[in-house]
């Protein structure tokens, strides 16, 4: 339960309930036993903390939303440049439904807004869960978050500078003199997001593998054993995440395989907890 108080010296968040609060008497009263009553007692005892948590959650959601909206408004000013970029890479760009131009622009602005405001949103989520974490959990999670952000950026850059132009060029080369491109803007946006964002997500693979290693689900031997199936799986995942063609599938599979190898190299360092540090699923120290 996230409501449970955990003693932690590093609690710095002012919005979190104070750690010195006295634990009320937990002994059950007459005739009030069983799981349902246990929950009721918990809510009675922790009610104040629950309200504080909900209040904090509310403000963190509002802050995230405000950041997203502000960033989207800024994103709206960048939309002409995005359209210009699309036109440059696609040739002729058209819209085929009355409201399509409007909604495509909104989508572009919202996507830019989400990208720009994502650090704020992640930070808000981080601050919200912070009081529930032990110091060593905090350290691990911070590492994972930073690595995740880094890999996301790397994946996005790979998609933007390699996968998107290469697959677009491949597809556009099928046009002929009698078959000229007039690309529908909403579909072009879908193609663009499909080739860039899917790489940003796929680049999170080593993190998932290392998290599994850390939890003891997999170890270095498993990584060696699973190399061939992983190679196969990388191509399957790449095929599922990219437009249905071999070029972007191979393009996507290559970094996946590389990332798998990186995870395999790093796994021995992650699989056992370092001395003096309990594993992630250890019970809290008393």
């Amino acid at each position, binding site marked *: 339960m996230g409501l449970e108080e955990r003693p932690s010296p590093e609690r710095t968040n002012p919005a979190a309930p104070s750690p010195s609060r006295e634990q009320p008497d937990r002994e059950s009263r007459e005739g009030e036993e069983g799981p349902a009553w246990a929950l009721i007692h918990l809510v009675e005892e922790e009610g104040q903390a629950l309200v504080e948590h909900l209040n904090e959650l509310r403000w963190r959601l509002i802050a995230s939303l405000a950041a997203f909206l502000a960033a989207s408004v800024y994103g709206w000013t960048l939309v002409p440049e995005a*359209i*210009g970029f699309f036109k440059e890479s696609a040739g002729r760009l*058209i*819209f*085929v439904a009355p409201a399509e*131009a409007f909604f495509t622009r909104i989508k572009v602005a919202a996507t830019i807004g989400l990208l720009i405001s994502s650090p704020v949103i992640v930070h808000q989520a981080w601050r919200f869960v912070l009081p529930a974490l032990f110091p060593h959990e905090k350290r691990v999670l911070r590492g994972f978050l930073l690595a995740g952000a880094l890999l996301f950026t790397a994946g996005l850059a790979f998609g933007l500078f390699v996968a998107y132009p290469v697959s677009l060029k491949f597809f556009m080369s099928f046009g002929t003199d009698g078959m000229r491109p*007039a690309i529908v803007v909403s579909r072009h946006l879908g193609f663009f997001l499909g080739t860039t964002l899917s790489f940003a997500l796929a680049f999170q693979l080593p993190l998932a593998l290392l998290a599994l290693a850390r939890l003891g689900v997999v170890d270095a031997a498993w990584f060696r054993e699973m190399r061939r199936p992983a190679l196969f799986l990388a191509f399957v995942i790449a095929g599922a995440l990219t437009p249905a063609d071999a070029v972007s599938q191979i393009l996507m599979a290559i970094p996946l395989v590389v990332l798998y190898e990186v995870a395999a190299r790093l796994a021995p360092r992650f699989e056992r907890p370092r001395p003096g540090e309990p594993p992630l699923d250890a019970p809290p120290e008393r």
Partner: protein
Amino acid sequence: MAQGFNVLDHLDYLRLRVLRAALWFVAAVVVAYFALTGRVMAYLIRGEGGLTGLVFLSPAEAFFSRLKLAFALGLVLALPFIAYQAWALFAPGLDGKRRRAVLLLIPGAYLLFVGGCLFAFFVVLPLALRFFLSFGGEGLEQEISVGNYVDFLIRFVLPFGFLFELPVAVLVLARAGILSPRAMARNRKYAVFAIFVVAALLTPPDAFSQLMLAAPLLVLYEISIVLARIAAPGTAKGGGGTGG
């Protein structure tokens, strides 16, 4: 049944009325296809909406979207005849006074429906098109396909027609004593909210067409309150403004 009118006779009568309504509808669709679809589709091209032309993106698109438009127009044209068949179906169950009252309601309701559609088509639609098409440009060329255009047209215009029936619904409910003009005035804020929700559900998902549908509805709501005051039972013959 008391007069020897058994279940089978009723079913027979129902069949007759449904068949006639369907025939009216088909006839109206045919008339609409040949007489109206071309004009309706061409009306806004190079008009004040800023639409420069239409294209079709698949071989059968032009034909099927024209057919779709004919069905929508046919529904509008045939509505009074379909309403008459429905009235004729239920008329034997009504007493003489009510029978006449319901029959008299049909022209008024139809006028409101057509009025709503015409208002949408001639006033709101050009504005909405101008608004949406203005987001083209800067390398984004306008090539509206006829299928998308007809869908937009139908999804835009028909809700106006149906929602303009509000005064009729209010009139009937007030006459039946279910709705009092006082309650309508008291619950105005909920009505405003409901109107905006309904307008959002029925129009394409943007604030602009929502507003364009909600504004006339708010006016109609106020008119309905006045109508309800006239129609409320007990107030029709100088009962004062105490109805409800």
